[in-house]
């Protein structure tokens, strides 16, 4: 062949309007997965304050002296933004779990013809669970 025209990968993303349910499910699953693995690293990092705490290190929290672990965690928890992020994390995790269940079903060959419906169901359920959890997550945070 003399020449040809390669339209490149960009077209893939410029066509998002044409994506179907399965494609969105894949994108959301991947996106939430990236966030969860990112969070896992952060989480372990935060929990590592336990090492300091075991060494007897302390810090000041709300005028009291507490150990490093308790202080770090409770300090973070007292921040409004952290609470909001936690709700976000819940949403991300719940979607990843629900869609993950959907994917496991697909892997087992169950309900393949309803794959789009189950994706929508995952989205709706994620929304409901997230909203329902807000009071618990926001409880006691100083605004």
């Amino acid at each position, binding site marked *: *062949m*003399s*020449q*040809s*025209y*390669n*339209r490149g*990968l960009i*077209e*893939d993303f410029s*066509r998002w*309007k*044409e994506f*179907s*349910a*399965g*494609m969105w*499910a*894949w994108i959301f699953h991947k996106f939430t997965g990236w966030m969860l693995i990112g969070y896992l690293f952060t989480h372990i990092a935060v929990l590592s304050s336990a090492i300091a705490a075991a060494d007897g290190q302390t810090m000041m929290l709300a005028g009291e002296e507490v150990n490093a672990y308790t202080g770090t965690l409770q300090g973070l928890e007292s921040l409004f933004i952290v609470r909001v992020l936690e709700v976000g994390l819940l949403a991300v995790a719940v979607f990843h779990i629900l869609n993950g269940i959907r*994917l496991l079903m*697909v*892997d*087992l*060959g169950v309900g*393949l013809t309803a*794959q*789009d419906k189950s994706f929508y169901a995952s989205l709706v359920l994620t929304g409901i669970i997230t909203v329902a959890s807000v009071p618990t997550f926001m409880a006691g945070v100083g605004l």
Partner: protein
Amino acid sequence: MSTQQQEPESQESPQDPEMKGAESPQQRRLKEKQEGMVDEHAEDEAEAAGETVHIKVFRYDPEVADKQEPRFDDFHVPFEKGMTVLDAVMYARDEFDSSLTFRHSCRQAVCGSDAFFVNGSQMLGCKTQLSELEQPVRIEPLPHQEVVKDLVVDMDHFYDQMHAVEPYFQDEDTPAASDLEEQRQTPENREKIKMSSRCIWCGACMSSCNIAAGDNEYLGPAAINKAYKFAMDDRESEEIKEHRLRILEQEHGVWRCQTQFSCTEVCPKDIPLTEHIQELKREAVKKNLKFW
């Protein structure tokens, strides 16, 4: 990419009798039958209906100066009941621009030549009714394949992937005539491979697959489906089935499938591609578990 618009071409039906030969086959046929009896009847009707379809067709030619930069051309094609996307581009080619290039042959969805990207989805031009599409109808070559010219894409990679799964019975080439006793196959087993055997190699699935777009080595839905047809056929022995699974369970085999279902959705032959790929994944795992 540029989407330079061209002036809409004339959509008038040629009135000059000498131009008769250049009308759409359908319109012409209608007209012919009127001849001798009610000569003007058909024309009146066509005019009364007066409907045209607006199509926007992707144009590119590496050699022609004003087509080197890809663009869309607009055509207004007289609409007839039952008209398909392929009919429309054929009309545009025969009437307006003979350089409009696309593959087509059987016009009945078995040769698989004319898979296009129509209004954002892969479909066969010949089996897509214009009446079901929103206008203007945007017709592009299949995404994720290099464009040779206009709607023609390079299919070589697709064929390479199809060939990569060893798509043929592995038995002896030519048993002697006396050994040609037929192999038995249950109707159930035949039914199991029925859908997979309907593939017409149009490439719509591969083009719709996000993973195949990113990972050039991925075998792709069509090739895996082809392998499924053989792997599930009881006429081949267990050893050959294992050999097939070994081809499929490479890193760029079945595992790359992310169950997005886009292949299953666009397949013009309604082959449950995702289901077949998933079944092969389970078969491969089962085979590996045996050795644990």
